[in-house]
């Protein structure tokens, strides 16, 4: 077996989301696991085709929202009842009806913040450098090209066999991704 200089993987290029979808399914059926598809817009069914579990983002956001609600109401309760009690127009110190609007706002603020931060963190973004950018044609991944990259870390990866396999999927071209 010949040794190759380390590469990130092999990347096949398609011009149609359905072709990519079929390629992803075929690659998974062939036993590949460490791979990623790159598309200019969301392609439905692609994560299932790649065999990924649905994201747990909604649960994280629910947690963020509940934290925001508790923090918002707790802050107001603490300020108006404990730290700085004031009699305003004879209203009770714990004026819960008046505390609802700010509580709602903090709930939304925390949920939205959690959604964005958690989405970026789970995606490991921002990430200025990534090997796939080394492929020149990849700049069309944000316009009209669809890519499937089988990574060199996959146990089944073999420079020649994987290339043959990818070529069998009838892509526009197959290229090496330098790492």
């Amino acid at each position, binding site marked *: 077996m010949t040794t190759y200089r380390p590469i990130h993987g092999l990347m096949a290029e398609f011009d149609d989301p359905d072709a990519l979808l079929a390629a992803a399914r075929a690659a998974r059926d062939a036993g590949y696991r460490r791979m990623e598809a790159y598309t200019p817009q969301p392609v439905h069914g692609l994560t299932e085709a790649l065999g990924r579990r649905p994201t747990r983002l909604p649960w994280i956001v629910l947690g963020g929202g509940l934290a925001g609600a508790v923090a918002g109401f707790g*802050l107001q309760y603490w300020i108006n009842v404990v730290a700085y009690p004031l009699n305003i127009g004879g209203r009770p110190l714990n004026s819960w009806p008046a505390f609802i609007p700010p509580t709602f706002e903090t709930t939304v603020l925390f949920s*939205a913040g959690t959604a964005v931060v958690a989405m970026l963190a789970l995606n490991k973004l921002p990430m200025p450098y990534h090997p796939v950018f080394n492929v020149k044609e990849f700049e069309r991944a944000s316009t009209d090209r669809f890519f499937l990259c089988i990574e060199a870390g996959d146990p089944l990866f073999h420079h020649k066999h994987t290339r043959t396999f990818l070529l069998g999927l009838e892509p526009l071209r197959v290229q090496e991704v330098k790492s």
Partner: protein
Amino acid sequence: MTETREAAPVVAPGHDYASATAAISDVVLRRKPPRAWFVTFGLGFLGVLVLFYTMGVLVLKGVGIWGVNIPVGWGFDIINFVWWIGIGHAGTLISAILLLLRQEWRTSINRFAEAMTLFAVACAAMFPIFHLGRPWVFYWMLPYPSSTGMWPQFRSPLIWDVFAVSTYFTVSLLFWYVGLVPDLATMRDRVKNKLAKVLYGIGALGWRGAASHWERYETAYLLLAGLSTPLVVSVHSVVSLDFAVAQLPGWHSTMFPPYFVAGAIYSGFAMVLTLLIPLRKLYGMGDFITMRHMDNMAKVMLATGLIVAYGYGLEAFTAWYSPSDFEQTLQRTRMHGPYAPFYWSLILCNVLVPQLLWFRRFRSRLAVLWVISLVVNVGMWLERFVIVVTSLHRDFLPSSWGMYTPTIFDISFLLGTIGLFLACLFLFIRVLPMISIFEVRTLVSPNKERGKGT
């Protein structure tokens, strides 16, 4: 200017991924801005200068340069604040609610409408902050442990406003930016200029369109839409509570929250139409912003306008049905008092003229639609004027009645924010794609002609 509608498509036929991407991004990257861009941006910039001048005078001399007085302590500032916030609401509505309702037609206008939201909210925030008199200590309103040992008073709707507006601005910004990330990647990959490439690249955060990223991205985007929908309702409800929790006739009305929300959407859609009708022509975006969009927006305007009219009617009925002299007097003052011309103009602008929108004949004529949208913008401004000034200038004690006249600085502040709004909006059009490219791509077919490579 009549074009056919009804079955008008969301995107004109004949586009594929590449051509749609090019058509939208070329506005920023390739084409020279049209002359109208320079003219409008120039006017807007002039407005910004006027705004800075007014702010300078205000900080030097105090809020006395405005026409506010006792009893009318809230004049143009609160009118303009509510007006601008309301305009912002259409953006959130288009991007969030229509996304949840799976209305595909939103795709071509949501980016622009969201940008409009951001700038409108920024303009709105100027007014309460400068109305404070000492705008540089605005942060005293926030709950933080300060050396004075004091804390905010959470029974006041003005503090709720601080929370509502700042949350609204933050979440709108997040929503807008998250929507932009994939398009910034597109711009990064298409732009030739080195510096621009770096700047777009920083904004794109290294986005590479990985499938797992898209999944989380779409989930986050939907969640943001779901959160923005009640948020937008809450923001204008809180604004309405600034009035409604008081006991003043004309302000203390339980239906104020939904009535204000409807009014906000009404004026917001009017502003979207006011801006999009000329822009669409100017940039030849008729393929993406079709007659279908115009027709739908006109219908939303009609529906919200009717809710607003319901509010006016119910207010009149309440006064008539009320045993309170004050309520009855207020309604009489509105209709026959010194500011009666404002009330009747408001009825003309907000209730009578928009009834034309029932007819497809008028909805499909862009010139007519544009004029109606302008009329509604004016009408919604008048509505806030009537609510604020007529209620305040004659309250319970006749001895403390007074009149309110805006000064030149009131007017220059309003014109200045309009300038700021236009300047920001036109800068946005110049540097960022005004239509969400990746979402439009989901509406067109992949490739017209297959150019197979090696």
